[in-house]
């Protein structure tokens, strides 16, 4: 009996000591700081109403839970337990697959079509915006370049968790497929790292099991190839870049980003890391650059800034902005553009590079493209240009592979329409009284074979009306028509063409150029 009551005392004392862990918790934690970004602390309100309703007490509990000594050890042990015994993650932002390969759930969901694909209309709209952005940048003597980066799920599919594979259907098409197909039909300069990797990199350094970002080694190889392409497309003499890859035990950030936020004591990692060392020889040109994108820029585009390739730089990744490698600003959200001077950023930049990951095309740049468009357009003129009815065509039908798009014509930006009626240039959002003017002609390559067509300009607004203009074909000397229409009370203008009776569609490649809206 005495033995029993001794055990009762011991038992109770043990429990009291366990519950008193905040007293000695700091000793157990040993100063280890948990990795990863968690939510911002809310201030504890101390006012009568908050105490009355219990809000103060609730916030106090939340704060204690975040700050209690011993918390770090608890979280790490819990994470270790889940990892070791269940091959599972205690962190909702990490999913563990076969061979302990780590993924972020959103990349899995997107690649496996667990989230709905972008609709055709949404994809078209994105391309139209990019076309417009390019047009506006070119008008301001700036260049646009796009980098598409890959997703780990594409290259590590065999290791994704079994229940993702078992519970989802195989996908037929991705957002990337639709996007790249449409992008190829435009004149926008871009580099598709997925195409490059598929042709040039076959080892397991593309993505490591321990991270969600592409390996620094693979990203460096892409960067070297991208630079060559960018030089050709933009015309900037940016110098030469080469890399040397060497073995590394732990790689370099962010090769182990997901592994680090699991905060484990022990883990299995068979990755063979390689780290790149860049060698850069400076070129003649050092344009000012504005880069916008996600965290995949960090292993690629940011290196170009670090190497001093650009005179001035604005590096805008997720929600933080680094100007000229020194001035850092963190925004309250990824699309908190009212907190920065976009106009100033654009004005001082000559080259605008947008990075998009294949799984983030649906949220490309988080509204930054719209902001740039808005900024670049005239302050009093929020008119935007849309190209409607775009379809890809085989290049044996026309050299641009599209039935409507931006081209270079007589050393200037122009829009070509190659099929009547189904293609249309639409200008929206006029305000104030303006004059719309533009030039139109049959493309000089085919004009001699054309018998002409009718350009139709429709105006919609307080009153709707339309005007028709004949564009001559054949060997006519005056081949260009100049259209100038005053616009008042109009909010939309549509430009298309058709073939009147007695004429044919053959060789009617209509070029519209020098579009301007003036007061």
């Amino acid at each position: 009996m005495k033995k029993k009551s001794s055990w009762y005392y011991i038992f109770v004392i043990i429990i009291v000591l366990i519950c008193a862990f905040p007293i000695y918790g700091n000793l157990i934690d040993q100063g280890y700081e948990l990795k990863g970004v968690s939510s911002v602390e809310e201030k504890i309100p101390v006012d009568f109403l908050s105490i009355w309703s219990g809000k103060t007490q609730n916030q106090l509990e939340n704060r204690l839970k975040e700050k209690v000594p011993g918390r770090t050890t608890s979280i790490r042990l819990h994470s270790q337990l889940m990892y070791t015994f269940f091959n599972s993650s205690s962190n909702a932002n990490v999913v563990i697959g076969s061979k302990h390969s780590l993924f972020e759930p959103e990349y899995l969901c997107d690649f496996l079509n667990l989230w709905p694909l972008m609709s055709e209309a949404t994809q078209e709209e994105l391309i139209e915006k990019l076309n417009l952005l390019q047009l506006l940048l070119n008008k301001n003597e700036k260049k646009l370049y796009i980098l598409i980066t890959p997703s780990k799920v594409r290259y590590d599919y065999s290791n994704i968790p079994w229940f993702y594979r078992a519970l989802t259907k195989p996908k037929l098409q991705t957002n990337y497929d639709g996007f790249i197909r449409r992008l190829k039909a435009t004149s926008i300069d871009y580099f598709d790292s997925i195409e490059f990797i598929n042709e040039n990199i076959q080892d397991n350094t593309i993505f490591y099991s321990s991270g969600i970002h592409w390996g620094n080694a693979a990203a460096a190889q892409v960067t070297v190839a991208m630079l060559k392409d960018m030089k050709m497309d933009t015309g900037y003499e940016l110098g030469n870049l080469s890399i040397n890859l060497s073995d590394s035990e732990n790689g370099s950030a962010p090769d182990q980003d997901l592994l680090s936020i699991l905060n484990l004591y022990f883990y299995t990692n068979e990755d063979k890391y390689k780290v790149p060392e860049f060698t850069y020889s400076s070129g003649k040109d050092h344009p000012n650059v504005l880069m916008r994108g996600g965290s995949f820029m960090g292993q690629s585009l940011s290196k170009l800034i670090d190497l001093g390739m650009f005179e001035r730089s604005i590096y805008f990744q997720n929600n933080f902005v680094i100007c000229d490698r020194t001035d850092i600003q963190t925004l309250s959200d990824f699309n908190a553009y009212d907190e920065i001077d976009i106009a100033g950023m654009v004005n001082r930049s000559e080259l605008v590079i947008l990075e998009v990951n294949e799984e983030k095309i649906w949220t490309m740049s988080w509204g930054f493209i719209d902001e740039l468009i808005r900024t670049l357009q005239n302050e009093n003129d929020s008119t935007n240009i849309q190209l409607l009815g775009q379809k890809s065509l085989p290049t044996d039908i026309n050299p641009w592979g599209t039935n409507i798009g931006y081209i270079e014509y007589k050393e200037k930006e122009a829009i070509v329409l190659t099929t009547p009626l189904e293609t249309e240039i639409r200008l929206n959002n006029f305000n104030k009284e303006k004059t719309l003017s533009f030039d139109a002609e049959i493309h000089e390559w085919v004009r001699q074979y054309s018998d002409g067509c009718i350009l139709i300009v429709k105006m919609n607004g307080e009153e709707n009306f339309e005007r028709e203009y004949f564009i001559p074909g054949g060997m006519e000397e005056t081949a260009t028509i100049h259209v100038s229409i005053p616009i008042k009370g109009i909010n939309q203008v549509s430009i298309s063409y058709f073939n009147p009776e007695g004429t044919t569609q053959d060789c009617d490649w209509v070029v519209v150029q020098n579009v301007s809206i003036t007061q």
Partner: protein
Amino acid sequence: MKGYVVMGFTTIIFLCGFFPLLIIIMSLCARFHSCRIKNIILLCLSIGFYAFSGLYSLVVVSILTVATYFLSLKVSGNRKWLAVGVVSCVLPLLIFKYGSFLSSNMISLVNLLGIHIDVKVMEIITPAGISFITFSMISFLVDIYRKSQPERVSFFEYVSYIFLFPKILEGPIADFDEVNKGLRESTISTQGIYEGVRRFMLGFSKKVILADTLAPFVAETFNGNIHAAGYAWMGLIAYALQLYFDFSGCIDMAIGLGKICGFDLPENFQDPYLAVGIQDFWRRWHITLSVWFKKYIYFPLGGNRTGKWKTYRNLLIIFLLTGIWHGANWTFLAWGLWHGLFMLIERVGFGKILKKIPLFFSHAYTLVVVLIGWILFRADSFRNAITYLQSMFGNASYAEANIIQLINWHLIFLMFIGMLISFKIPDRILGIWGKRIPRFIKDLLIILIFILAIFYMISNGYSPSIYTKF
């Protein structure tokens, strides 16, 4: 203004502050055999505990306590004053818990009749535990009326009874006699504290490891969308486990805390998922609620002594009230009636058939009825409940991202363990051998599980992301 329930038993404040302090104080009281000091300290701790849910709750319940105490001085043998007393208890419950629900439904009804009213319904903060508190007050008044209580109960004893912290938020529903024994006698002992702490730890572990871990998965499956059948069934089973372990875990903690303080609070669960028939289920699930309804509603209505049809009527009334007691939504009412209907069916004759057929089938029938009832209990609306049923018995092949993200071996393991415990498989496997395992080995195991539960409690909800600067 939104009300918060803060000082639950699975919070840091309680576990690391209140709980060890309680153990130390009660151990000292046990040592010095001081009942009076123990009761004073207990009352202070109870009021402090309740105040952590907000001063609003404390003020409202204090007013009700004072009012009902003075009414109790008049109800002995007096039906009129009893009626006043009961109405005084029920009215605040109706206003606080059902006020918004009743108002919005009245407005909808009026609008349906063609009279358009554009009125915003005010959300009223419900004082924490008001349903349990109201039932305690009513039982106190009725017991005095029936003269089953001593003629004079002191205000101190009554307040201590109402505010007794182990039971104030989530029960069990104990009557005054059950609690008063602990108040009047110095019943704290070292063994009692040991058993109480042990029971608390088991309850804590059940709630934190099993119930709280299943909760996010359940929340996603009951999001109102159509899912593939597999998810729906998995979600329903997970909910059945979550609900049981959450509620029974809290009751274990309450009983354990009561034991530490020298009270023997009544049991509320007795392996409900082993029930054979719905009648049996209600002898095992939320036992104190069933007992309360029996004592204070069913028997006064005549029970089963006023003929067959009145018995059925009384049963339906009880289950209607049981449903509505659980929450201010038509789905709770439907849930109550669902169980009432099967009670009637078993009463009429099906119960006898259940006793004759193999146990497996009667058990399976019970589980199916209970599980489908849980859909009504959990769904926010009839539409969501129907959607859920469509998911369970439909052929949708949708794979919802939010649900898949939560499925892993850990979840499956916990569900498996939960089912084993619910069906008492470990007890059956261990059998006699289990009794031979030394107590201190079992206690060490409980300590380890408790420590694990603390890890779970602190880690739940901690999911950092990687978006830092490179």
